[in-house]
């Protein structure tokens, strides 16, 4: 069963917009007939039904859906924390067998090592991998500067605000120069102002790195503002119900949120989600 529905006829292939420093040749993700279930026998719960997806190198893909729809589970299967019951996940034609430094991960909760300073946190990846030139600290300092926290390089995470901690989290995930950046509701715990700043910041970083980003969120505005593509997921069982191409021009300005095209896409997402929720509701009543 193929759940992918192409919603937008205007762009047959999701176009990767040209941007400075663009060098995405790697970071293609193929989700090939993946089904993810937990438990056995009668207790078995299918979190994600059979799904097939292709994500192009350098693409910014948002997975949008309500809580419990399996969007994080799908992301975790790309990260390698979860093994699909059927099918497989391939990154640049290599099957994913576990977590690895080629796929950077940014978590929802603050996941910095509290006993390491900002610099030590960001340098952790390169240090673990035994990178020598440039030194882990030099890589860390470059990335810390990029997220605008040079003044805080020697502080401990507890001394930083939530938004600052997530910026360090992004810098740390990028320090291994991964092919793919996986983000699991990274701005979910932030206030809306900080959130907007973080979104713009992320787009800038993505522009510089040109890597594939898979971004999980339950916020429609966030998904449309950030993504080249929005995959709308629905719960029980978790599956992709729509695959929208977001053909808004880049670089994107926060003002875009009041544009007609933005609002049209938003309405489309709403309709998709509402239709599915109603269906699910009726199904539960039966």
């Amino acid at each position, binding site marked *: 069963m193929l759940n992918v529905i192409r919603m937008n006829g205007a762009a047959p292939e999701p176009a990767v917009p040209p941007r400075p420093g663009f060098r995405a040749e790697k970071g293609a993700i193929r989700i090939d007939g993946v089904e993810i279930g937990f438990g056995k026998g009668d207790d078995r719960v299918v979190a994600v039904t059979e799904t097939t997806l292709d994500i192009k190198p350098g693409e910014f893909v948002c997975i949008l859906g309500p809580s419990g729809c399996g969007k994080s589970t799908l992301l975790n299967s790309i990260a390698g924390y979860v093994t699909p019951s059927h099918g497989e996940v391939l990154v640049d034609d290599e099957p994913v067998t576990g977590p*690895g430094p080629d796929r950077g991960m940014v978590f929802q909760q603050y996941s910095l090592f509290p006993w390491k300073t900002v610099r030590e946190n960001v340098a952790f990846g390169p240090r*673990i991998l035994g990178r020598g030139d440039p030194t882990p600290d030099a890589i860390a300092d470059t990335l810390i500067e990029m997220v605008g926290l040079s003044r805080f390089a020697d502080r401990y995470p507890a001394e930083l605000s939530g938004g600052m901690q997530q910026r360090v989290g992004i810098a740390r995930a990028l320090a291994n120069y991964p092919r793919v950046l996986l983000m699991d509701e990274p701005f979910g715990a932030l206030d809306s102002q900080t959130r907007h700043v973080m979104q713009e910041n992320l787009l800038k970083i993505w522009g510089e790195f040109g890597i594939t980003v898979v971004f999980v969120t339950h916020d429609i505005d966030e998904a449309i503002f950030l993504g080249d593509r929005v995959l709308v997921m629905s719960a029980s069982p978790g599956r992709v119900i729509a695959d929208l191409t977001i053909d808004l021009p880049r670089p994107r300005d926060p003002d875009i949120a009041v544009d007609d095209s933005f609002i049209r896409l938003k309405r489309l997402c709403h309709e998709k989600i509402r239709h599915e929720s109603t269906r699910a509701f009726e199904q539960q009543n039966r």
Partner: protein
Amino acid sequence: MASTATIHSETGAAVTQPLDAVARAGAVAGAGNKPARAKRKTPGIASRIISPFKNAISELFNGSGMTVTVLRRSAAVVLGVLLWHYAVEHDFKFIISFENVSSPTEVFEAFEKHLTSTKFYVHIGASLQRIVIAYGLAAVLGVVLGLAMGRSRLAYDLVLPYVEILRPIPAVAWIPLAILMWPTEESSIIYITFLGALFPIILSTVAGVQQTPEVLVRAARSLGARRLQIFRHVVLPAALPSIATGLSVGMGVAWFSLLAGEIISGQYGIGYFTWTAYHLIKYADIIVGMLTIGLLGSVSTIAVQMATAPFLKWQHKSR
């Protein structure tokens, strides 16, 4: 006596601004002191004299500053010594008896005398040596076992029954068997001390390892860390606060167990000193020994806390 001097100097400053002092006394004392009334009334001579005292006393009861803390703690000790003195002077006797208890001055004199005798230091040295050996072994083995149990289900299942069965057995109950098992009295005392320190260290270490946030392990894995690197960079530092607590508790129990061992056997040691003082009817020395034990126990626990503090400095940082 320094305490009263400070109170007086504080009240001296307060007298110059009685109105302000009244308001402050009311504010500090809170609702119980009816601040509204204090505000309305113009201060007469009586309140001019009383209010500074009220101010100082309410500060002493409700304050939390450094000076107040030191004052309160010193006052508690002074009060205890005075009660002790009074009870001995008047041969207090009601259920417990102070008839054979030495007075604070006698104990102080005995203490002074011992501080100049080599024998006293030999006793302290013997106890310290046992603590260092026994505690050192317990710290190393306890942390290693605790880490293994926290990380491996197999190790946990194999070791836990021993911890659960042996832990509740007090040091005193171990003495007969320890004497039978170990070749020398010295080794049996060290064994008992070691055992006392071991269990709290094991259990705190296990708890620390098990509390490691899973998201940090995941983060480390996605950054390329392997099992051993995760252990060294994530599990170990995450467990450190708990390990430090275990080490500090373990030091207390080590002294506790050492003294049990020294009282019943041995020829040297501060526990032996205390117990023989009883047999030799040197009653002041009993208290000298007890106070020395208390002091050594506190100092060594503080030493453990100071030794672990540099590893935990990240904990106390906050915005």
